[in-house]
């Protein structure tokens, strides 16, 4: 792949994806919408795992929190404006990430993995055990948020393809944002912290503050995904912040190849697609009943033989070394 192509490839992909609603307008469009939402979620986690060297096993907390924020901010039977509910939900996530970040960033390695999990579990039980958000049965968002400019409806979220375009736009925007951020001094410092935290400190970088900023940004971006996921089906349930969800998004990041933004996107596609294919009874018959067996084995194979994920697999066919991936 030459560098020119690499540069334009993301735009080409986004362009092609934008055309998708012309071909298919219901199920696969909604599935793709979901994949794109998960791609935002995966990118937000990749910022932590792949670029800051922090393995969070509780990232679903921020995803789910945004969904619940929308559900609780919206009046029960009336529409809520996206203009304030969207930033408000994300601000709540960012704030929660900031607070939890201050605590979890005191720990390292396995402890970090476990403490992030603990905070997610806490939040899980808050929504599962109390009446705050409808308990274990979840809560509905009856009317989708509106996006109006004056009296004009800018985007009608009830319309599947309009919602899809909005999600696609936000996915591309997230990609762009992270791309810029990671190329900035801030991003370089994060990479440095990932590679050699100790040295960064000796060089005079206030490592904790950088990590906290990254953690907060990551939480906020997960919030974008969570908000969109809640809007898509109008339904949130405690399960969206369970450790299974945190595990799933971590799988996406690693499957795609951590430390590459497009890897996170590829991972989200691959993960959802794999589930679709493996559980497809038309193709696998009775074996599809045990599709999770195949899923588990595939995950293990990736862990053993594809440490750089699918993006790494692509890279092996003649691209730059991994360490430079952030330079492009």
């Amino acid at each position: 792949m030459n560098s020119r192509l690499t540069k334009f490839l993301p735009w080409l992909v986004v362009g092609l994806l934008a055309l998708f609603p012309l071909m298919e307008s219901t199920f696969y469009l909604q599935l793709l919408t979901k994949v794109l939402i998960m791609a935002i979620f995966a990118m937000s986690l990749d910022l932590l795992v792949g670029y800051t060297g922090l393995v969070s096993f509780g990232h679903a907390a921020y995803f789910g929190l945004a969904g619940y924020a929308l559900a609780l901010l919206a009046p029960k039977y009336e529409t809520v404006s996206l203009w304030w509910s969207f930033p408000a939900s994300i601000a709540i996530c960012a704030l929660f990430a900031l607070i939890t970040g201050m605590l979890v960033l005191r720990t390292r390695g396995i402890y970090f993995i476990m403490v992030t999990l603990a905070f997610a579990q806490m939040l899980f039980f808050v929504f599962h055990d109390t009446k705050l958000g409808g308990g274990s049965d979840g809560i509905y968002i009856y009317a989708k948020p509106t996006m109006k400019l004056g009296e004009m409806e800018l985007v009608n979220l009830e319309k599947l393809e309009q919602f899809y375009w909005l999600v696609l736009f936000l996915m591309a925007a997230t990609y762009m944002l992270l791309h810029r951020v990671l190329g900035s001094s801030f991003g370089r410092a994060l990479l440095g912290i990932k590679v050699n935290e100790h040295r960064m400190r000796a060089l005079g970088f206030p490592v904790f503050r950088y990590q906290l900023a990254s953690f907060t940004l990551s939480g906020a971006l997960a919030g974008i995904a969570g908000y969109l996921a809640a809007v898509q089906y109008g339904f949130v349930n405690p399960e969206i912040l369970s450790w299974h969800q945190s595990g799933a998004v971590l799988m996406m990041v690693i499957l795609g190849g951590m430390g590459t933004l497009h890897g996170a996107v590829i991972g989200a596609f691959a993960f959802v697609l794999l589930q679709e294919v493996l559980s497809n009874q038309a193709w696998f018959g009775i074996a599809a009943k045990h599709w999770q067996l195949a899923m588990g084995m595939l995950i293990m194979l990736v862990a053993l033989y594809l440490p750089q994920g699918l993006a790494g697999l692509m890279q092996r066919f003649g691209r730059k070394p991994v360490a430079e991936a952030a330079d492009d």
Partner: protein
Amino acid sequence: MDFAFFLIQLLNGLQYGLLLFLVASGLTLVFGIMGIINLAHGSFYMVGAYLAWSLSSMTDSLVAAILLAVPLTVILGMALERLLFRHLYQRDHLYQVLLTYGLILVFEELRSIIWGDDVHGVAVPALLNASIPLTDNLSYPVYRLAISGVCMLLAAGLYFLIQKTRLGMMIRAGASNRDMVQSLGIDIKLIYTLVFALGVALAAFAGMINAPLSSVTPNMGSQVLIICFVVVVIGGIGSVKGAMAASLMIGLAETFGQVLVPEVAGMIVYVLMAIVLVWRPEGLFGKA
């Protein structure tokens, strides 16, 4: 709550704590000595319980089932270490998380294929099938007390193994300096295989002797998994002492939490964990 019931709840809490220790002890060993983060620990617990059920229904004796099953789980542990885990020691924890997450799915489905999705019970051994009356309408099952005894024996045994034996010395040295041990001509690979097998066997053993109490059900592994992690992390990774302290702490917190603050009982252990880690980021008995 009057004083007598307070004492009984105290007993409940301690007993539950010991039970937690039983499951978590293997995890902390593998964690601390090999630096492996093993999400599939709960699956070994489940495998133990199902083995206890299927073998005890064949042999009509839980003891016989355990005697048969423990060697099987040791072999399982050694095989897994050789085939899978060995390749991940030098890698980031992330890949261990990934691999063991995959293992959970595999074990869960294999369980479904081999043993089905039913709920099963294992009979308490006749000798221990009795209760000690505590109040006019409450009594304490002897089997629970027996398990507590086993837990304490096991704790003592582990402590002895690690602190006093040659194997334990090698294990400790291996934990602190892999290269050094290797240069002394000790086969570190063998030690790791043994430790991992020990960890698997401990988890499975916990599942076995707990089977008569907990009943044998699908997904029982993932229920204990998270709480085990909490125990290990609060106690300090790799510390048997810490695992014991943390288990008892959690046992008491859950017991009194359910009675005194039922509204937030579900999250009480996580709050506890967060507090401990903010106060001591490396756990109660962890090395900095």
